[in-house]
């Protein structure tokens, strides 16, 4: 059992668990723990967490994942992409398989070390450090240029618990793309029987020169667990990373997704679809950091919010002093389907270079009544019309998913009570 509200005693708490002791006494662990206790875990007074209260999550007693012998057939999980290479992770623990052994250009390995090389600002987001302290398996995929880009890699993040106590899982994945390597990675979340759990994921991407990654994150049907998802990509010269996050039918999700353009002519795109209903709270904080000149980034987030759902969007773009000739574009559009649905949106551009092209836009509105009436006049009842218009609204972002099977999977299935 572990308690987050007494962080200073974390080392002692872990000592009594089944935890690798060598790791526990390493200087890296102590460093990480002290920076975490110094900053503390966020309260609503912290601007970055203003709309995402986590107090109840922090006060709970959690069970840490234990090794499990469960086997899961990827076919049981939606979406199922037949040709994909499946990588199953249960509660953050890697499930050994020989999937990657015969495949050229890709290797899967596990490491157990407490800190990754990401620069984290614990004041803004301490959860990656917490992940670093609590995770067991860091799953690493090294992809070389020989890898066949047309075979998607599907990471299934599965969560289940036999304990009565809520689970705290810390999945950790690192993707290393070597020079000229290309890959498409689907990362989907599946909660089997966990109540009031907390999932704190750390996903990091290193894209060497000329490499390319399409990363599609599917957060669908996450009702009984809160998900705090942290993803950071470092993009080098002429490399391209595209993150796509799709949130649907989920209760409490906070995504912090960042792209760092560290060398010239790097490209980072981030796209999102958020479908909210009931009382869901979906918070997307994105960061695009133009460190090097001559880079490009594109961001498009679309929200469809119904009932009493709330969404938060904070899109940060930093253009550093030397990042001349930057092209950075951001757009956030929201469709509110009911009077109690809420969007808190804050585009945030901090531009220090002076020869750049940057734009941002945020629009919020409800369904076009004229359009609905036109559809009715042609025989289409209101509910069907609403579905058509809502689908049309998110269609633009679905079209940007580079995997055809996923495009068809999502078309028509991302709508909640508006359609059901």
């Amino acid at each position, binding site marked *: 059992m572990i308690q987050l509200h007494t962080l200073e005693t974390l080392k002692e708490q872990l000592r009594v668990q089944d935890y690798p002791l060598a790791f526990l006494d390493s200087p890296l662990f102590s460093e990480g723990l002290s920076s975490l206790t110094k900053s503390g875990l966020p309260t609503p007074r912290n601007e970055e967490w203003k709309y995402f209260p986590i107090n109840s999550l922090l006060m709970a007693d959690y069970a840490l994942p234990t090794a499990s012998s469960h086997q899961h057939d990827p076919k049981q999980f939606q979406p199922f992409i037949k040709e994909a290479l499946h990588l199953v992770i249960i509660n953050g623990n890697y499930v050994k398989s020989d999937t990657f052994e015969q495949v050229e250009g890709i290797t899967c390995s596990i490491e157990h070390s407490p800190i990754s090389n990401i620069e984290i600002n614990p004041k803004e987001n301490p959860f990656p450090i917490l992940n670093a302290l609590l995770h067991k398996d860091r799953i690493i995929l090294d992809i070389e240029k020989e890898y066949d880009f047309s075979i998607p890699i599907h990471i299934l993040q599965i969560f289940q618990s036999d304990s009565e106590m809520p689970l705290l899982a810390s999945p950790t994945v690192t993707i290393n793309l070597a020079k000229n390597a290309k890959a498409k990675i689907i990362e989907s979340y599946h909660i089997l029987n966990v109540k009031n759990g907390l999932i704190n994921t750390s996903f990091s991407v290193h894209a060497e020169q000329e490499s390319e990654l399409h990363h599609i994150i599917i957060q669908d049907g996450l009702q009984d667990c809160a998900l705090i998802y942290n993803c950071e990509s470092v993009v080098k010269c002429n490399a391209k990373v595209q993150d796509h996050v799709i949130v649907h039918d989920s209760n409490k999700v906070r995504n912090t997704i960042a792209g760092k353009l560290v060398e010239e002519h790097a490209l980072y795109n981030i796209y999102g679809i958020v479908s909210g209903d009931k009382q869901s709270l979906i918070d997307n904080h994105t960061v695009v950091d133009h460190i090097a000149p001559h880079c490009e980034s594109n961001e498009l987030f679309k929200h469809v919010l119904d009932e009493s759902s709330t969404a938060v969007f904070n899109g940060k773009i930093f253009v550093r002093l030397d990042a001349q000739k930057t092209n950075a574009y951001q757009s956030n559009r929201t469709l509110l389907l009911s009077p109690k649905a809420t969007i808190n949106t804050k585009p945030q551009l901090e531009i220090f270079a002076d020869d750049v092209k940057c734009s941002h836009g945020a629009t919020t509105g409800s369904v076009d009544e004229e359009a609905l009436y036109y*559809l009715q006049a*042609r*025989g289409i009842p209101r509910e069907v019309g609403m579905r058509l218009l809502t689908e049309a609204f998110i269609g633009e972002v679905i079209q940007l998913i580079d995997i055809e099977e996923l495009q068809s999977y999502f078309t028509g299935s991302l709508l909640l009570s508006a359609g059901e």
Partner: protein
Amino acid sequence: MLNIKNLHASIEEKPILKGIDLIVNPGEVHAIMGPNGSGKSTLASILAGREEYTVNEGSIEFNGKDLLEMAPEERAGEGVFLAFQYPVEIPGVSTANFLKTALNEIRKYRGLETIDAMDFLALMKEKAKLVELDMSFLQRSLNEGFSGGEKKRNEIFQMAMLEPKLAILDETDSGLDIDALRIVAQGVNALRSPDNATILITHYQRLLNYIVPDFVHVLYKGKIVKTGGKELALELEEKGYDWIKEEVSLS
């Protein structure tokens, strides 16, 4: 087919229609003309089921059923089609997808099976020819970026696809050049049959050269003040509406 009795209607307390009586039988083409503000568009809107208008008195029967009790989609199911004066643009919904949905909803309403994908494609090709609409238009978002003429042709294309019993064309000729007018009229005429009827709402006599009406009604200040044959339209073209206005104030 259509029986409008003593229809009084208003919008936001302001009375617009002050007692309209009109009977339209299958196979007939009726033209409704009149000066601006007479209530022509209001009549069209009420027939199509716009909620902003209030019917204060009177009734509308369509094939024996109470039209005013029906939601707009039910009226479409019954066979009423309004070609809008200002068709709306709907980005993200292709004309093809929209029409397939509409056709299937109407078929559902009538207890029929949904249309087969191949049959639908064949139907679209056939009807697109009627209004000289290129197939590529149909994959584009509904009316998005269409010129005025293209939007009106798209309305007639939809009419051809849905095969209504009663088509109401609300100032379909406004904003059209001669070629577009010819194409639209051609389409409307090709769809005429002894089983369906058309109401043309128009300012100008010009359209009526192409779509020859059986009856011409003049709507003035919310009432039909004169009814005649196609010659009435020519008379209006020649003399304008003043003589009608005089006739009305004298009586």
